[in-house]
C-alpha cells in the first residue's frame, strides 16, 4: 500500500493531546489523509498509550486496537492520543495524571469527560474527528459540553479489542465529530464483528444519514427533566424536541422507574470490573518498573500506590470491597438485577416508541475544580449511564446554548438501531443549521 505522511503541528492550548504524532502516516481509502485523534486508552502500535495514568507512562503497545487498525486501513492519519480522565474514571478530564484539558468554549470550564481531550481536539478544529470511549457517558458528556456530536454505539457493534478495559460490560469505542455526517462516516469505518472480541456482533454499519423522521414516535422520559436537571438546560432541550415534532415526529411522555437504581447499579458494576481490570498494572511487564530488590508484594504495593491517582484508587477499593466474599450478593449481584430492570424498562418503552430523547447532561460544563466532591460528580452521570446499562445506542447532538455554553440533545434507540438514532440527530442538525 502506498504511504503518505501528514504533518500535524496543532496549537494545543487546551491540553487536548497527550501525544502528538507530528509526522502521521496515512494511505489511500475512505478517510485518506484525514487527521483522526484517538483517546489514550485505545492501543496504538508504536505510539505511547497511557490512559492518562502514571502507571502506564512509557508503555508503547506492540499492537493496534481493532478500531485503530480499521482506521489505518481506511487511510486515516492517526495524529495523536488525547487526554482523558485516568482510565476513563471521571466526568471532567480533570482526573488526568498529565493535567486537565480545558473546554475550548470557555477555558475556565472543563470539557467534560472522560473523552475530554478528543472532544476539545474536535471542538477547537485541531482535528475533524476523533475516537472516544463511553462507559457511562464518556463520549456524550464531553460532546455536549464542547458542542460537538458524539455517539455511543450499541454494545457489541464496535470491537473493544485493544481498548484498555475499565468496565468491559459497559463500554464502547465510538465516533466524535463536528457533524452527524462525520460521526456516521467514522462509524462506517470502525463498526463490525471482530474475531478478537467475542462480544461483537456481525452488524456492520453501512448507513448514510437521512434527514427524515416523519412518523417516528419519540418517548420523553419524565426522569430526564426532573430533579437535578438545570431548568435552563431542560428548557433548551424541550425546544429542540419541539423541533423534532415540527419535523414530523410525535412525542409521548414515558417513564423509566428503574432510573432510581441506575447510578448505583452503574457505579457498583464499573468499580467491580475496574478492580479486576486494573489489577494487572504491577510494574512487572510494562509501565514504570518496581524496585526489584523488594519482595514482589511489597514492590506491587509501591508501584500501584505511586502509579494510580486518587479517583482510580477510590474506585479500585470500592470494587474490591463490593466483590469481597460476603458482599458479592449485596452489591454486585444486586447491581446486575437492577441492570436487568433498566434493560426491561427500555424494552417496554421501545415496544411503544422508536426513540427516546432528553438532555445529555443535567447542566452545562462545570467550572474547573467545581466537582471536587466525587459524589456530586457521580450524580452528573445520571442521564447517560442508563444507555450503558442497557447497551443501547445513544447520541449527543448540540441543540443550543445556556449561558453561552453548549447543551446536548441526547437521542437513544433500540439495540442495533444506531442508524435511526443517527438519522434523528441528522434531521435535527440539518433543520437548525
Amino acid at each position, binding site marked *: 500500500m502506498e504511504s503518505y505522511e501528514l504533518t500535524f503541528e496543532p496549537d494545543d492550548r487546551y491540553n487536548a493531546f497527550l501525544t502528538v504524532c507530528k509526522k502521521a502516516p496515512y494511505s489511500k481509502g475512505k478517510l485518506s489523509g484525514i487527521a483522526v485523534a484517538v483517546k489514550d486508552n485505545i492501543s496504538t502500535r508504536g505510539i505511547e498509550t497511557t490512559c492518562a495514568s502514571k502507571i502506564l507512562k512509557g508503555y508503547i503497545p506492540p499492537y493496534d486496537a481493532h478500531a485503530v487498525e480499521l482506521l489505518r486501513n481506511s487511510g486515516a492519519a492517526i495524529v495523536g492520543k488525547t487526554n482523558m480522565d485516568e482510565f476513563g474514571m471521571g466526568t471532567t478530564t480533570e482526573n488526568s495524571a498529565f493535567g486537565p484539558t480545558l473546554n475550548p468554549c470557555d477555558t475556565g470550564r472543563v470539557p467534560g469527560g472522560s473523552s475530554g481531550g478528543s472532544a476539545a481536539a474536535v471542538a477547537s478544529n485541531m482535528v475533524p474527528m476523533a475516537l472516544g470511549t463511553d462507559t457511562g457517558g464518556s463520549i456524550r458528556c464531553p460532546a455536549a459540553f464542547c458542542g460537538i456530536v458524539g455517539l455511543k454505539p450499541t454494545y457489541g457493534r464496535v470491537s473493544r479489542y485493544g481498548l484498555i478495559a475499565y468496565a468491559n460490560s459497559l463500554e464502547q469505542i465510538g465516533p466524535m465529530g463536528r457533524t452527524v455526517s462525520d460521526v456516521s462516516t467514522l462509524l462506517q469505518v470502525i463498526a463490525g464483528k471482530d474475531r*478478537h*472480541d467475542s462480544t461483537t456482533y456481525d452488524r456492520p454499519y453501512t448507513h448514510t444519514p437521512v434527514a427524515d423522521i416523519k412518523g417516528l414516535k419519540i418517548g420523553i422520559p419524565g426522569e430526564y427533566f426532573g430533579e437535578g436537571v438545570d431548568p435552563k438546560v431542560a428548557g433548551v432541550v424541550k425546544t429542540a424536541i419541539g423541533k423534532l415534532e415540527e419535523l414530523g415526529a410525535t412525542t409521548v411522555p414515558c417513564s423509566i422507574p428503574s432510573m432510581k437504581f441506575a447510578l448505583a447499579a452503574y457505579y457498583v458494576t464499573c468499580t467491580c470490573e475496574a*478492580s479486576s481490570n486494573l489489577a494487572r498494572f504491577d510494574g512487572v511487564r510494562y509501565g514504570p518498573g518496581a524496585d526489584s530488590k523488594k519482595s514482589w508484594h511489597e514492590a506491587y504495593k509501591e508501584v500501584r500506590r505511586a502509579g494510580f491517582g486518587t479517583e482510580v484508587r477510590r474506585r479500585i477499593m470500592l470494587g474490591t470491597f463490593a466483590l469481597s466474599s460476603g458482599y458479592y450478593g449485596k452489591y454486585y449481584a444486586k447491581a446486575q438485577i437492577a441492570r436487568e430492570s433498566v434493560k426491561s424498562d427500555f424494552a417496554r418503552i421501545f415496544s411503544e416508541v422508536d426513540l427516546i430523547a432528553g438532555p445529555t447532561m443535567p447542566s452545562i460544563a462545570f467550572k474547573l475544580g467545581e466537582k471536587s466532591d466525587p459524589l456530586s460528580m457521580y450524580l452528573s452521570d445520571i442521564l447517560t449511564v442508563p444507555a450503558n446499562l442497557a447497551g443501547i445506542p445513544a447520541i449527543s447532538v448540540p441543540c443550543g446554548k445556556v449561558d453561552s455554553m453548549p447543551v446536548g440533545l441526547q437521542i437513544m434507540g433500540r439495540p442495533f438501531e444506531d442508524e435511526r438514532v443517527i438519522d434523528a440527530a441528522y434531521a435535527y442538525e440539518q433543520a437548525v443549521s
Partner: protein
Amino acid sequence: MAEDQVIVGLEVHCQLDTKSKLFCGCSTDYRDDGPNTHVCPVCLGLPGAMPVLNKRSIEYAMKVAKALNCTVLHESEFSRKNYFYPDLDKAYQITQYDKPLAEGGYLEIESDEGGERRIQLTRIHVEEDPGRLVHMGNAERGKYSLVDYNRAGIPLIEIVSEPDMRSPKEARKFLNKLRATLEYLSVFDSDKEGSLRVDANISIKGNERVEVKNITSYKGVEKALTYEVTRQKNLIRRGQRIERETRHFIESTGITQSSRSKEQEHDYRYFPEPDLRPLHVQSWVAGIVLPELPDARRERFMAQYGCSLNHARTLTGELKLANFFEKVVAADPKGLSTLAATWIADTLIGELNYRSMNLERVDTAGITELISILKQGTITDKSGIDVLRVMLDQRHNGEPTETPAAIISRLNLAKTTGDNSAILTAIEEAITENPRALEDYRAGKGGALNFLVGQVMKKTRGKADPGELNRLLTEALAKREA
C-alpha cells in the same frame, strides 16, 4: 466405616493437549523453546487484549465429561478468579466458578479389597494455566525470580471428586485410571512435564479436613497422603486437634508443610468474565463419539486374548502399553497372547521400571520374536529374561542392537535337547555334593527337591528345561533311594 477411616477427595488439574492455547492462537508446544517465545498480547495480559475461547478445548473437555458420565450443563460461564502473583499476568485467572461445564459423573477404580469401586465426581471445569516462575540467584548474589509466560493460557480441566476414596492407594488408583481415560480420549499427554497437578483433601473420619496442594506426580499423591495419614493419626492419638488448613507437599522430602499465613488467605472475588459470552454447548454431547475406553478394552483383552483380569488391568491401564501388547501379538494372537501378557505385564514392565526406560524405546518386533522363541520352547524362561535384559540394555545404552536369535546364539543359550548327559552329570554332582538335601528329600521335605533343581540350574547355567530337569532329578533320586 471404621473409627479412623481415611477420607480422600481430589482436585485434579490436567493440561488439555490442544495445539493452541485456551484464549489465543499461541502454540502450546513450548517445552523445548526459550522462555516467553510462545506469547501474544492475549496470553501476556497486555492492556486491551481480550480472550477468545478456543472451541477445540471445550470439545476436549466435553469428551472427558461424557467419558466420565458427567452432565454437561445447559449454560456454563467463565469467571474471573482474582489474585496477585507474578506468574499471573492479568492478576486474575479465567476459570469457571458457579456455572461449570459439567457436573456429577463417576469413575470406577479397583478397590483395595479387589473388585470395582465407583468414585463420584462433583464437577469438571475449564480454566487457563498461569505462567511459571523460575527461581534464580543464591545466598551471595541474592535470590530473584524470572517469569516465563509460555505456559500462560494453556487449557486445563479441573476434575473434582467427591470425598469417596478411602486410602492413599485408592487415590493413586483413581489418578492412574483418570490418566488412562484421558489418554484413551487423546486429550492429554501425561509424558509432558507438569501436565498434571493435584490438590488433595484428606481427613480422618470425624476430624477437620486438610488440603494438600502442589502434588505434581502420580507417585506423589500416594506419598503425600500417606504422610498426612500418619501425621493426622499421630495427632489424634496424642489427643490433639486437627486444624483445618492448607499444606504444601514437598516432593523432594515427601512431607507436607503448613502454608497457613495471612498473606495466603485469599478472597478470590469471583465474578463472571465480561469479555466472554456464556457457553451453551449441551447439544454437542450427543454428537461426541467416544473411543474404546480402558474398562471396555480390559474386557476385550480378557475375551479376545484370554488375559487374566490382573494382566488385562495392567495392560489396559496405560494406552501405550495396551497398544504395545496388541502390536506384539498381532502376527499370531492365538499363539502368542497368553505368553505375551505374562511377559509384558509382569517381566517387561519390571525391567523398564528398573532402568527408568520408556516403553516407546522398546522394539516391538524384537519382543514378538522373543516371545515366539519362548513359545517354541527352544530357550528356557530364565534365558528369556537374559535375552530381554540384553535387548533392553542395548537400546537403553544406545549400543548396536541384536535380534533375540542373535543374542541366543552369541551367548549360547539354546536349550540342550536330545542329549541329557550334561544334565545327568550335573544331577549326580548336585546330589553327591548335598547329602543333606538327599536326606531331607527322603524324609519327605518338599523344599529339598527345589533346592536341588536350583543347584542343577546353576551348574547348567539355566539351559536345562525345567520340566525335563524335574523328571530326570526325580528319577535319579528314586535310584538313590533304591
